[in-house]
């Protein structure tokens, strides 16, 4: 079932782990011997200054996150997500499925082919990254749990651990975080459940131990730390749409022609490229044109 999709970004676009690992060691060694001022040896400086189409480093991917249960600032999740409990992770599968119940991670995804998928990630806030995920196709998981006739949507829910999530009770938010896809979107070979990045297990701030990745949609659709999957006949509510349906639609496809009221969606800032990294034009469906048939006949200005 796996390998139904081939990367357009390749390993050549990714900084080999050995290189950035070495670079950090070199800098650490320099700091230790007093050659570099301590102020210049942090992860951001250690990161290579790369061309726009190279993947972000693991440090960057782990230090710049939206995971609002841990705080509103980009650096909050890295600081606070360590307390999240991910041991003995269980996922409840319910709704229009043949095999409902509570699954361990191994029961849900064990034996499925884990692939590397180097995807562009485009945030609705108009920044972007390139991330080499390790994951399995969601379609394979759906096959395992058995989708029944009449199911048209797949809903997901993020764990809510108020004791371990300092911002879980934030005024104005509405947790647990929920997201959903139309069934045909969920079955598309681009849609994966990721369990790792750069062949390392996901860090908590990146959505450990398992998260959705839908590369042609704005990042908030790619829900993190999933504990519940339900197959439904009707379109379920999703967190950001519930907070402000004017700004966040159900589909949330990356679309440079449909402007967000606050951020231009015509262009994006690739983060990690430094102070002079500049912008680049945003691509329709984030460059994943093969999903266009899913929306044939739809007006994406209405279904934004």
């Amino acid at each position: 079932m796996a390998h139904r999709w081939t990367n357009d970004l390749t390993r050549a676009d990714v900084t080999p782990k050995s290189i950035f690992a070495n670079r950090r060691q070199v800098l650490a060694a320099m700091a230790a011997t007093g050659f570099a001022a301590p102020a210049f040896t942090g992860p951001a400086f250690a990161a290579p200054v790369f061309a726009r189409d190279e993947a972000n480093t693991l440090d960057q991917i782990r230090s710049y996150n939206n995971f609002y249960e841990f705080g509103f600032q980009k650096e909050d999740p890295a600081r606070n997500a360590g307390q999240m409990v991910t041991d003995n992770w269980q996922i409840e599968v319910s709704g229009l499925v043949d095999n409902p119940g509570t699954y361990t991670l191994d029961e849900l995804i064990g034996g499925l082919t884990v692939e590397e998928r180097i995807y562009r990630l485009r945030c609705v806030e108009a920044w972007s990254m390139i991330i080499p995920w390790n994951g399995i196709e969601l379609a394979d998981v759906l096959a395992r749990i058995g989708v029944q006739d009449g199911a048209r949507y797949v809903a997901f829910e993020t764990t809510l651990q108020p004791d371990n999530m300092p911002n879980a009770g934030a005024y104005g938010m509405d947790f647990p975080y929920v997201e959903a896809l139309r069934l045909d979107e969920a079955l598309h070979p681009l849609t994966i459940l990721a369990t790792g990045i750069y062949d390392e297990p996901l860090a908590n701030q990146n959505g450990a131990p398992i998260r959705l990745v839908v590369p042609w949609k704005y990042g908030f659709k790619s829900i993190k730390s999933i504990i519940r999957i339900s197959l439904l006949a009707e379109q379920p509510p999703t967190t950001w749409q519930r907070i402000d349906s004017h700004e966040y639609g159900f589909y949330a496809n990356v679309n440079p022609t449909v402007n967000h009221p606050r951020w231009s969606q015509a262009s994006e800032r690739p983060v990690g490229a430094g102070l002079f990294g500049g912008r680049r034009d945003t691509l329709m469906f984030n460059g994943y044109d093969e999903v266009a048939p899913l929306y044939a006949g739809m007006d994406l200005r209405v279904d934004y």
Partner: protein
Amino acid sequence: MQPPRWLQDAVRRVPVWLIYLGTALWLGGLFAMALFGRLGVDPVAELIAQYGKGALNMLIAGLAITPLRRFTGLNLLRFRRAVGLSAFFILCAHLAVFAVLDLQSLSRLGVEIAERPFITIGMLGFVLLIPLALTSTDRAIRKMGRNWTKLHRLTYVVILLGWLHYEWQVRGEVVEPLTYLTIILILLGLRFVPRKRAPLHKNVSL
């Protein structure tokens, strides 16, 4: 009410140019951190956010000077021009980073101002500050007289526009913007507290 003597003395000894120097060091320091990768993965966004908030804080500081004197007796009036101009300089840096390092094009800037209401409002606030900065000289104050005071009441409008601009771009957060608004409204509201009249001496014997 009078502040303690030592505080008045200490404040009197602070030279005004320290405000300008502090602002310049803060602006330059943040920029250097961004340049050397010490401001996180997205230094452009971080600089814009920090400069923006810095300008708002400076405007609020300027707004606090009059009520501070009236209600605590602490007189910081001679710093007011430096505080206001510093707010303006920080705002220039905020806008420059946005236009030059983020958008990198005038046409994009035009589109942003036209299509993004929060940016329209921010630009309006900035434009309204320009005449205030230009008339901050001693000569302008002398020449304009009462009109100078009237013109400089525009800061009340600018600060409300600035708050709206900031609140509008926040995603998810509620408490911090409301805290800012509360402080601004209190500082504005204090200006409307009626002054006590000097007691009338009705029974003065001749």
